[in-house]
């Protein structure tokens, strides 16, 4: 098997030639994203929706709607499921004079899976990239490294860790590039998800379910039909105004979800100035779980017209989501209670396309750096 990271070797050679390298102890080290990135992104994207007080559906005015699950054998609505994954590894610090930058390599990817009539899952599309990340402007040879990587082929990409993208600087505040790399990789992964989601060829009536909240750039999705986002870890900050007598009732998320029965949804709230409809669906009975927020997913539905969304459509989608509670990735993912199994499978499809950590550590070595030089 040829070294899958061979394409990055010329760039690493330039770095070792031009600067002093302080390699990561014991080869590449995986940098993990903490806290839960999905929740952070959801919080970021709903930063302007602290108070959800407008209902965006008609004719329903009830705060909770109980539903009968719609199984695929009855009506198979949800056909495509999309998820991405990113793994970031710290290779070492590069020092040029008084300036320095950490160097990272990320494996990022996204996959869409298709569910057949019999429930079996096929991979519809999967993309993967290996990204070299560093603070390009911190060193004199940053541009050259970028040029070399961009010539290495479509599998490889270069990204400036410090480049602003509207999210990373919020999710990983501060100027420290090391802490930003994993968040940056997730941002790049979201771009791959976005690319697959927008270009996926689907027949009418075949809904696409995205993992996580809808991206900021909904304009680019304006021609994409029948999709919505499902978030399993969501922001707990919003406050809701429920319809009712004497002007209704204002409650927080905990109160909203404690009252949400099993196999039911909340009413749809307007977010992002009505361009997105938001509601919550309880997939699992509370008595089986530890906490009221468990077993609930948040649904974000694109609504470019900003008109009220038909409640019937919301019910159909929600009922189809409730049917997704079987089976679960219990034991494989701590978020199993709110995880849709096909989304989990899409995530697995991406992860299985990644090179293993062992191969990555063996394949990514600083050229020309021997053990004794590291000690010195």
């Amino acid at each position, binding site marked *: 098997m040829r070294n899958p990271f061979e394409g990055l070797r010329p760039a690493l050679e330039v770095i070792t030639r031009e600067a002093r390298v302080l390699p990561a102890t014991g080869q590449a080290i995986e940098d993990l994203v903490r806290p839960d990135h999905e929740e952070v992104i959801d919080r970021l994207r709903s930063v302007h929706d602290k108070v959800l007080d407008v209902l965006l559906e008609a004719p329903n005015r009830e705060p909770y709607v109980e539903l009968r699950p719609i199984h695929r054998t009855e009506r198979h609505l949800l056909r495509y499921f999309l998820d991405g994954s990113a793994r970031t590894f710290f290779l070492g610090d590069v020092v040029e004079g008084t300036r320095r930058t950490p160097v990272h390599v990320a494996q990022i990817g996204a996959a869409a899976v298709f569910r057949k009539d019999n429930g*079996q899952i096929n991979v519809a599309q999967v993309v993967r990239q290996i990204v070299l990340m560093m603070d390009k402007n911190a060193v004199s040879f940053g541009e050259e490294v970028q040029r070399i990587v961009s010539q290495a082929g479509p599998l490889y990409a270069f990204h400036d860790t410090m480049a602003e993208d509207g999210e990373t600087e919020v999710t990983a505040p501060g100027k420290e590039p090391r802490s930003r790399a994993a968040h940056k990789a997730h941002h790049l992964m979201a771009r791959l998800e976005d690319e697959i989601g927008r270009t996926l060829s689907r027949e009418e009536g075949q809904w696409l379910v995205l993992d996580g909240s809808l991206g900021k750039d909904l304009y680019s999705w304006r021609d994409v039909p029948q999709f919505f986002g499902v978030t399993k870890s969501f922001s707990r900050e919003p406050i809701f105004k429920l319809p009712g007598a004497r002007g209704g009732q204002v409650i927080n998320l905990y109160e909203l979800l404690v009252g949400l029965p099993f196999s039911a949804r909340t009413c749809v709230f307007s977010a992002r100035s009505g361009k997105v409809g938001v509601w919550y669906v309880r997939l699992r009975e509370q008595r089986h779980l530890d906490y009221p927020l468990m077993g609930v997913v948040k649904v974000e539905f694109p609504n470019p017209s900003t008109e009220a969304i038909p409640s019937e459509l919301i019910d159909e989608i929600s009922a189809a989501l409730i049917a997704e509670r*079987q089976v679960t990735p219990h034991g494989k993912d701590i978020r199993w209670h709110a995880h849709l199994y096909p989304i989990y499978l899409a995530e697995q499809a991406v992860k299985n396309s990644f090179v293993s950590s062992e191969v990555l550590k063996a394949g990514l070595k600083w050229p020309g750096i021997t053990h004794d030089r590291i000690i010195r």
Partner: protein
Amino acid sequence: MAEELEKDAVAPSERRIVGKASATERDPNSSEKFSFWLAPEEIVNPFDIIEAEQMEGTRTFGLVTNIKQITDAPSHLSNFISNDFGSPTSTPQTPRQGANVGEVSVLANYDPSEPKRYPMGIYMPVQSDAPVRFADEAGIHVALGIDKMFEYEKEYKEKITVPAGLLRMSNGTKVGVYLDKRYVLGPEGAHVNIAGISGLATKTSYAMFLIQSILQTIGAKDIAVILLNVKQNDLLVIDRPRKGMKPEEHEMWEFLGLRPQPFENVRYLLPWGKDTQTTGLPNCFGEPPDQFQTYAYSLEDVIGNRIHPGPGLGLLIRVPDPWDTLGALIGEIQQGIINQEPKWKSVTTWDALLNGPPLIDKGVPQTVKEVRASSVGRFIRILRRVVKNRQSGIFVEQRAPRRAANLGEEVRKIEGGQTMVVDIAKLTDEERALVFGHIIQEIYAMYAEATVDERGELPKKVIIFVDELNKYAPARRGETESSILGYVLDIAARGRSLGVILISAEQFMSEVHGQVVGNCSTKVIGRSDSSELADAAYRFIAQDVKAHLTRLDKGELLLAHPIYRQPVKIEFPRPAFEAIGHERLGW
């Protein structure tokens, strides 16, 4: 035949791929074993033979030993929770991801190129993701090493393949399975042992099928067969064609290149009974065959004479004799009678031996040389029980040669092409041991002590079939022990060089002497229970395969042969002779 197979064979690339080899961190492939995942909807079963593409364009054949389903559920609890917290009626929206994984024991590697670049084969582990297909007929023969038999036949113009049954695979492929004559009739190996609780008459039926197969393919004229009938009248009708054979039974015989025909040139030897003197009928179950001869034992027949010693009294005394007291006394008696010593001259009948001098005087046991009177008394008590009180009628005071034959003399007259059926179904255990011991002693003496000229007159091979071998060659020394064991061990060890072949059967191989089983080159096992299969006698079967042996159907057997790298599951056609016993018992 090999050429025909090659001509009819479908190129591997045209056969459907059913899965791909799979090697993982925890379950790597090796030179001996590999795993493969199966495409959904594909069905394979244990004992199917599959092939995987191997390096350098070669193919690796293997026997499926087990199939497992793996899923991504880390625990049963996860599955419980996934079914809506234990709802047995729920249907998953997305079925849990799982795969059926077959475990395979490598049989052989085949290099299709000519001249062969890898004549020894490539035994590198099957590489992960190598396409896997069902093997075809030619492939199965390569896998089992049968192709080498065909090559030998072609090169030396000598028939060595003996049809042994039919291998049927999950994809519908039917393949004839063959034994190598050199490992069945010698000289490379010999003997066949059949064990199991497969069902009524399955073991006997298979033995009859195999003997018929040997006679039809190797040539009946040089082979003599001696069959011991131990159950009902099962083997007393083997020369009568079976009526109402179904077309599929005919087809199975013909598929294996055999004719469904009964045995020819059969002699029946039936035991003398208590009523035979008056009725003229032998002591057998049901109607005797049209042509038969009775046999009986007088004292002289058991002891014999100087030229032809008899089977001996030792075969009748099946009690522990740790100090060889009874053995010494038997030696004295036999020596005295054979040498016609003065004090033994009057001992010519069983009555004379048991009631008169020199063993008894006025009703009191006497000391005989160093053997004390008490031991003599014990010997008389045991012998009286066997030849007088509990006998079936086979022991007679005087045998009239025209009415009852001496079994030893009849055995010595056997010729090539002849099948002799000796009925022992109604005999007591001691009598059965005497008859079987007498037969193998005579056969062994005929071949082991024959001069070169005498050998030329004997059949080239003698096949002896006996059921319930555990009674004659028990694994453990015990109360039923008798001197017959020595004869059986001799036949087992030296039979292949002499041309004396033992085809034996028993329910439990664990109860048969290890040396006898060990010397049987070919082992056939029917359904057996798991406690029996835990015995060391079944070491040659892989653990996974053992589990499947507990649920073999009637008519299905596991066949282990030195040429095959792994045992295979076979079916075989019902005997073509009139099997009264089988039909009555529900075959």
